[in-house]
Each structure stands twice: as C-alpha cells, then as structure tokens.
C-alpha cells in the first residue's frame, strides 16, 4: 500500500437529484495525488470544487466512479469505517474555522482524539503539543472568540493534525483572513507539507495558490488544467 498513491480517482461522476431532475456537478473526473504533494484547486464558484472536496473528505459519496484513499476503495466502506478515515487519515480545515464556540482552544484541538479513543490526560498532553506546533502554546485555555481569526485558523489546523493524518483538506482556509494572517497560515501549511503531509487546498486567491506545487483547475464539473503552478496557469483561473 505504501507505493499506492494517496488519492486515486477514476471516472468520478456526481449528480444531485432535484425535483427538476438530475443536476450533474462533477463529470468524469480523474485525478491521482501522490504522497507529500501540495495541490491547489482553483475554479469559479459552481465549478464543482467544493463537491469534489466533500467527496475527497468522505463526507459525500460519488454517484459513480472509483475513489481510492490510501489504497482503500471508499465505496466499499461502511459508515463507521468512513468515520475512522475522517478521524485518522484526513484532517479538515474550513474557511469558517468551525471551532466549537463553547469549548476552549485546547478542547477544540483535542476533539478528534476523543473519537480516536484517547484518555483525557493523553488528550491534554497531545493538544498542548499541537498548539505549540502552530505557535499558540499559551492560548489553550482561551475561548475561540477571544483570539483572532488567524489564530483560530491555526487552532483549526492543530485540530486537523491531532490524529497525525496523511492528508489535509483545506477549503478556502484563508477566505476569511486578511493578507498578513493569510500568509502566516499558509506558512504553517508549507511547513506541514515539508514534513511529508499531503495537502489539497481550495482557493481562489492567486498568491495563496503559489504556495502549492501543483495546480488543478475545475470548470463546469471537469478538470481543465492539471500541472505545475505557474503564473499563466493561475492567471487562467482568474480570467
């Protein structure tokens, strides 16, 4: 399995059933992502990139086609096994941070560890370690509302890292942040990628996409570009 690509997607289709009939969202998508890659996904809204991310994150299932995550055919897994993948293999980072407002920063970071079955003390220790990793060691006892947006996103990254995932899925992680904090957050991603974690990132900001090594462009449910990050490739998205 170690040689298998982390993500292998073959002839993936996704359509939503509505009263007006089936609405196709993704159309014959093929993609292979190897370990330690840093992929930026760009595309106009409605191009299907969010749906694609949901499928990558095992939150949604394809209508047809194959998705192998870490060598496992996701289609054959039951709900509990998918939950295990989300817990152990994937780490999510959302645009809106999605921290639990009533829990402290440290508790938010430790949340996935509850579902991984760790003891309370072990969870606290690990949360402390993770917060230090994103430079927020002293903020463990704060409520999410007491820290800045950039800090909240770093907390969310620490949470995504809690169970040592192989893959981080980030859906417009800098969408709610200003320029300066965006770059701080992206530096964290770059460091993680240098340590061997695969990152798939959705963004529509050109300078954020330059942190990635590979660019995938979506349009109307299809991949229209897949290659190295370059000025022209990014500009193509912008147009």
């Amino acid at each position, binding site marked *: 399995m170690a040689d298998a690509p982390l993500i292998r997607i073959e002839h993936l289709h996704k359509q939503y059933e509505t009263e007006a009939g089936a609405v196709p969202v993704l159309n014959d998508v093929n993609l292979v992502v190897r370990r330690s890659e840093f992929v930026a996904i760009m595309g106009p809204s409605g191009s299907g990139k969010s749906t694609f991310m*949901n499928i990558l*994150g095992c*939150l*949604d299932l394809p209508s047809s086609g194959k998705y192998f995550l870490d060598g496992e055919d996701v289609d054959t897994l039951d*709900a*509990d096994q998918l*939950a*295990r993948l*989300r*817990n*152990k293999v994937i780490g*999510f980072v*959302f645009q809106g941070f*999605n921290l*639990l407002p*009533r*829990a402290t920063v440290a508790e938010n970071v430790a*949340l*996935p560890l*509850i*579902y*991984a079955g760790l003891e309370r003390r072990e969870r606290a220790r690990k949360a402390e370690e993770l917060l230090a990793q994103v430079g927020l060691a002293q903020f463990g006892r704060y409520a999410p509302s007491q820290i800045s947006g950039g800090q909240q996103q770093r907390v969310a990254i620490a*949470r*995504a890292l*809690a*169970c040592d995932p192989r893959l981080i899925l980030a859906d417009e992680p800098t969408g709610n942040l200003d320029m300066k904090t965006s770059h701080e957050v992206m530096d964290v991603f770059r460091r993680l990628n240098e340590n061997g974690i695969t990152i798939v990132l959705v963004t529509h900001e050109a300078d954020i996409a330059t942190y990635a090594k590979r660019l995938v462009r979506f349009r109307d449910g299809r991949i229209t570009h897949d290659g190295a990050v370059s000025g022209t490739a990014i500009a193509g998205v912008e147009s």
Partner: protein
Amino acid sequence: MLAEAWRAMGANRLRSFLTMLGMMIGVAAVIMMLAIGRGAQFVVDQSIASMGSNLFIILSGSATSGGLRLGSGAIPTLTTGDADAIAELPSVAAVAPVAPGSAQLVAGPANWSTQVMGTTPAYLDVRDWQVQSGYAFSNAEVRSQARVALLGRTVVTNLFGDEDPVGKTIRIKGSPFTVIGVLAPKGQSLDGRDQDDTVLIPVTTAQRKVFGSQFPGSVRFIMAQAVSAAAMPAAQREMTELLRQRHHLPERADNDFDVRNLTALADAAAQTARVMSIMLGAIASVSLLVGGIGIMNIMLVSVTERTREIGIRVAIGARKRDILAQFLLEAMILSLIGCVIGVVLGIGAAVMANLVAKIAVVITGTAVLLAFGVAAAVGVFFGFYPARKAATLKPIEALRYQ
C-alpha cells in the same frame, strides 16, 4: 463526554433548569402521592390490626313483637353458655362473650361516662389487645364476680390524668371497683370510634351487679376468632349449626342470631385504600410523562441549534453512535438531575403534608426507586428520538447549516 454534556447544559442554564423542572415536579408528585396513598393504607391496616384478625361478631337476633320488627340484639338469645360451647369448636381459637352498657364512672373528684364491657379474659386475645400496666382479670375472677376493672387509655386520662390508676378504686354506677390494669392504646377503629374509651370488667359482674338483666347469663354479642383466615368459612358454618342446635331451632326457622365476618369488612376498606394509592400514583405518573415530553422538546431544539456542531464532529471522525451517545447522555443527565431534586422535593413535600396538614404519609424505598427508575427510563425514551435525529444528520448539510 460527561464534561461536554455538562457544558452544553451550562450554556443554556435557564432552559436546562426549566426542562428539569418538568421532571422535578413529576417525580415529586409521584413520590408525594405514593407517600399519601401508602399513608392512607397504613392507617387502614393499623385499624384492622387493632380490631384483631380473623374476627366474627355474633349478635343476638331480631325480634318481632306485634308486627313490629326490632333490630339485631333486640332479644337476648345469646348466653355465656353459647360462648363456652363455641369455644369448644376446633375452627375457633378464642371466644369472648360481651355484655356492654354505658355507665358513669367516678374517681375522686373526676367523673366520666363511657362504655363498660362485661367480658372474659379471652376478649384480650380475640382483640389482640395488650395490658400496658397491672394485669388482666382471670377466669377465676370472672367466676367470683370480682369487682375489678381494666381501663382504656382515654378513661385513665379523663379520670386520673397522669397518675397511675393501678390499685386505685373507681365507682361504676355507684359500686366500687379496683383498677387492676391499664390497656395499651389502640387508637381509632375503622369507623372512627375511640377504642381506648372503654372499661373492661368480668362479664358476670356486669350481668349481676352493674347492669342486671331479666335473662340471667345473657350477653349482647359474642366475639370469636377463627384459628386462621382459611378456617373462617368453616368456623362460620360450625358456629351457625352449633347455635341453631343449642337454641333448638326447627329446620325451617330463621336464625335468632347473626354471625358477621368483620374481617371481610376490613378487607374491603383495605382494598379501597389500595385502589386509592394506585390511582394517586397513576395520576402523578402523567406529570412524569409530561416532564419527559418536555425533555424531548428541548433536546429537539438543541439538536437543531447545534446542527453545525454535529457536522463538525462528524467531519473530524465522530461515528453515528458517538453523536447518539452524546445527546442521549445529555437527556439522561437532565432527567437524572431533575429526578434527584424531585425526590428531595417529593420527600420534603410529604413531610410537610404530615407536619402541617397532619396527613399520614409513608415514604418507602420502593416508591422512591420506582419514581427514580421511571424518570431515568423516561429520559432515555424521550432522549432517544432527538439523539437519533442528530446522529442521522447528513454531514455536508450539517456543515453548511448556519
């Protein structure tokens, strides 16, 4: 998990409290109603026990004189001889003839009017009555028509106050009697009479020296105790046959006496108390149910409010059963806390009812456990639906929820 459930409730204290309030009132009502029901039952049981068990009362018959029918006991057909004969029956444990009458008692400056019962020592066995101080008169004293008296507690209080009357002399209808003992208090009878307002004297003394009678040896009624509850029908039949024989009644003639089963009456009273107890409990259970629905209501609101939180949890690896457990736990904690407070309130209210309104209450461990168990079950039952709703939310929709 527990800490999280606690925090979720702490985030909405007023709402959590109001939810628990329903449970509290339900549990408190059940406990208080059961306590009152049991209390009523206890009072009835006590009255029954004070009457004596497996009891018959045999009354002398009614008479018809000149077309005018008189009631039971109008003609003195029963005698001490009848009582002695009944005592020989194998199904009968104890028999006491009773010749009652009311009389004025005088002791020093005090006087008191009460019921004086001429009877035999067996009366104490039949009625299951103890002598508190002094001693009971013997059969020898019955034979010798001794002027001795056993006083009930109420009589002692009215004639002697706090003094010990044993050995003192009282006058009953003017003739002197020596007080040889005081009866243990028995309290009220089923029909509310004060059973302690009485004086017992030997039946012979009553017949010959106090009340007199134109029929020597006649008694107003005979009390008989069967050897067991099972022996009661046999005892009734045997006593009836024996008395018909002794009274030389021809085949067709009506009985000139009346055998009544007192225990049957008592059983009916006990049954009534039991039914009341169950009914009170049932009515109170309805409020428990309402409390449970309150919990469901709040949990449903809570699930909707926290849709996004559920989505986040699912995204980071929570399984269906983790979400289910979380919300079920919250519902159970709500109902359990409500329950504990309800138990305290219920017991407190029952004690208050006892102290202030003088209502008899009996709080039993089973009643408390029952209320507690039902409340916990209600918590699980009504918590399950919202929890399941939370667990089956689609993660992408939950995450998109604002």
